[in-house]
């Protein structure tokens, strides 16, 4: 037995040496030649049915005009594991030219892995992005000042409320008081006490790193007037705004105004919750219900035209495995043109990240008033910060949130201060 152990250990040691040699040494791919070559490419988009429909039509439109640079589209699962799929693909060198589902939070990691192409290196790279998206594009620059992603579409998070439930609770269904924290809490209590719905609002209490975007971050963006979680290498949320957001939610969970266990299905659609934090993608789902939309509340109340929120953006990135980057860049511009952005808007209801949306597509918004609210909100969006170890930072934040806010353990200020210190350490590591 002992001899077996020695032999096994030796075999493992040898294998690990070989693995190291094989793994780290790699032939350099493409280099500059890829940047200018043209040819067929593959793209991935999410498996959401509306986006698939949009994807298929844009691919068909391109292929009709460019038979020598054929684009093949593939769906990838859009769930929380899509990051794992993409990073595994980067490691194996099997990423497509473009992925139309790249989360901004993953961009720092993918960039560190050497998986993303620097879009600013294209002669019209930075100018195209900035002319399309305007000033908001700055939030999508990487720490080296270049663009490694093209801001594509956003889903500004706002509050949906169920008009029937509001009515049942004795609240004005056309203008429920949701502007200040005090109003929000009293509305929520009225709903739950009158048993009009089981919960007032029901964001997911799960502990995945991205869940905070839909509760804390939206509220923090509003309260702080547009601050990101981390700015200039330091956490910002340990300020008065962050603490008051955390305290509000702690009050909500303590008063059972929101549920603390994961809900299978859609609590808003089921009528279990009276309100929901979601973006315009949800409009298609709730078509039949009588719903209204309100901006995120702030502690002292703000004019709706000044309130910020979380963008929930999904972007397009070009990956280094692409051999025909010139084609990829051209296709990228083609798929984010005025016409294709309009098709995206019409087919999926999500907001293309263009400056002044309501002015660019006045006819559409005149015909679809519900979307107009989101379009105007889309001018004031906060994105996740582009910093190293961003996913770890968000996980740290979420762990602190579930402990202090959802389960009410410990002191809120202390929890926030500790989380801020931990995150400072994480984002300063390379």
């Amino acid at each position, binding site marked *: 037995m002992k001899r077996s152990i020695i032999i*096994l250990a030796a075999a493992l040691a040898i294998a690990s040496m070989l693995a190291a040699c094989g*793994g780290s040494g790699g032939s350099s791919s493409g280099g500059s030649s890829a940047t200018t070559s043209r040819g067929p490419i593959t793209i991935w988009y999410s*498996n959401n049915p509306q986006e698939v429909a949009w994807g298929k039509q844009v691919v068909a439109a391109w292929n009709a005009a460019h038979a020598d640079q054929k684009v093949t589209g593939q769906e990838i699962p859009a*769930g929380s594991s899509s990051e794992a799929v993409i990073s*595994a693909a980067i*490691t*194996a060198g*099997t990423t497509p030219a473009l992925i139309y589902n790249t989360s901004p939070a993953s961009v720092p990691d993918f960039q560190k892995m050497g998986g993303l192409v620097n879009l600013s290196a294209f002669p019209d790279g930075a100018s195209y992005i900035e002319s399309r998206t305007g000033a908001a594009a700055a939030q999508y620059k990487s720490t080296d000042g270049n663009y490694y992603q093209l801001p594509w579409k956003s889903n500004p998070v706002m509050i949906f409320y169920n008009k029937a439930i509001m009515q049942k609770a004795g609240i004005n269904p056309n203008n429920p008081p949701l502007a200040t924290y005090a109003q929000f809490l009293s509305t929520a209590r009225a709903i739950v006490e009158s048993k009009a719905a089981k919960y007032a609002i029901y964001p997911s209490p799960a502990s995945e790193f991205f869940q905070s975007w839909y509760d804390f971050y939206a509220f923090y963006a509003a309260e702080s007037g547009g601050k990101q979680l981390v700015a200039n290498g330091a956490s910002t949320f340990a300020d008065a705004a962050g603490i008051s957001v955390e305290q509000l939610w702690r009050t909500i969970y303590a008063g059972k105004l929101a549920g603390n266990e994961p809900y299978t*299905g859609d609590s808003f659609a089921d009528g279990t919750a009276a309100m929901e934090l979601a973006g315009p993608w949800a409009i298609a789902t709730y078509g039949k219900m009588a719903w209204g939309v309100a901006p995120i509340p702030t502690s002292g109340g703000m004019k709706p035209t000044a309130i910020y929120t979380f963008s929930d953006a999904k972007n397009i990135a070009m990956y280094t495995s692409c051999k025909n980057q010139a084609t990829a860049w051209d296709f990228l511009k083609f798929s984010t043109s005025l016409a294709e952005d309009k098709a995206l808007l019409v087919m999926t209801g999500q907001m293309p990240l263009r400056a002044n949306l309501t002015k660019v597509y006045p006819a559409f918004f005149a015909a679809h008033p519900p979307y107009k609210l989101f379009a105007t909100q889309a001018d004031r969006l906060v994105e996740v910060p582009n910093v190293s170890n961003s996913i770890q930072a968000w996980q740290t934040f979420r762990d602190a949130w579930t402990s202090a806010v959802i389960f009410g353990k410990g002191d809120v200020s202390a929890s926030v201060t500790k989380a801020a210190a931990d995150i400072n350490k994480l984002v300063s590591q390379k």
Partner: protein
Amino acid sequence: MNTSDTQRMPRWRRILTMTLLMLGALVFLFPFYYMVVGALQARRNPSLSGAIPWLSNLTLSNFSQINSAINLGQSLLNSAIFTGAVVVCTIFFGVLAGYALATLHFRGRGLLFAVVLLLQAVPFQLLMIPLYVMLVRNFGLGDTYEGMILPFAINSVAVLIFRQFFLQVPREMFDAARIDGAGEFRILRSIAVPLVRPAILTAALVTFIGPWNEFLWPFLITKKQSMEPLAVAVANFTQTGLAGHANPMGSILAGSVALALPAVVLFVVFQRYFTQTHASTGVKG
């Protein structure tokens, strides 16, 4: 069948044992039953009465809904190919390895057995990414059945089961044949293989469960929806495909039933064959 044992039991004890067994069986079956009922419900009913399949609430629409979201037929086929290949490989090479480990003495036997155990102890998540890189980058097996099958090709628990089985077979059977001059392969073919049939069934069942229900690895290695086995398709659907469905829970349960049903059916069909003949009967006389 230890009928002698049972006959010695006083009647009250037999009835008690039976009652307890039946109660236990019902408790064991209940979640599965609840799953089937939920899959057939038109509207979700979380109260106690939801456990009873009220005829007015029954429908097959959940199944058609999930079939429109994921192609049930194609996914089932992928699962069948993946699982079938693993079971065949495991039985073929596993019997050989288990037999060798149990009855033959050769250099490296101890080492191999240690490795079999060690392999169990290592979590798959640790191996996943290097394995993925090796299979996809170096061998180009992404989005192929081979790539899906390879990490699971020979199930080590099955090897352990075969080894365990052959350990319980009296040595005299093999030694007698050797004295008679039979070569090793002849012994394998004429004595060991016919004997091991009951263990093959056990090992096949144990091996079947793994790849049939596996979702992490096939999820990683397949991009094309047409290659996804059913477990992956259902898991994806659970995570993302729920918006717009009238009864999302019902659709998920319908997918779960579709995943579980073939395994249960196969098991029900084959479980009769698990009764072993005593190995000792070969030595008597």
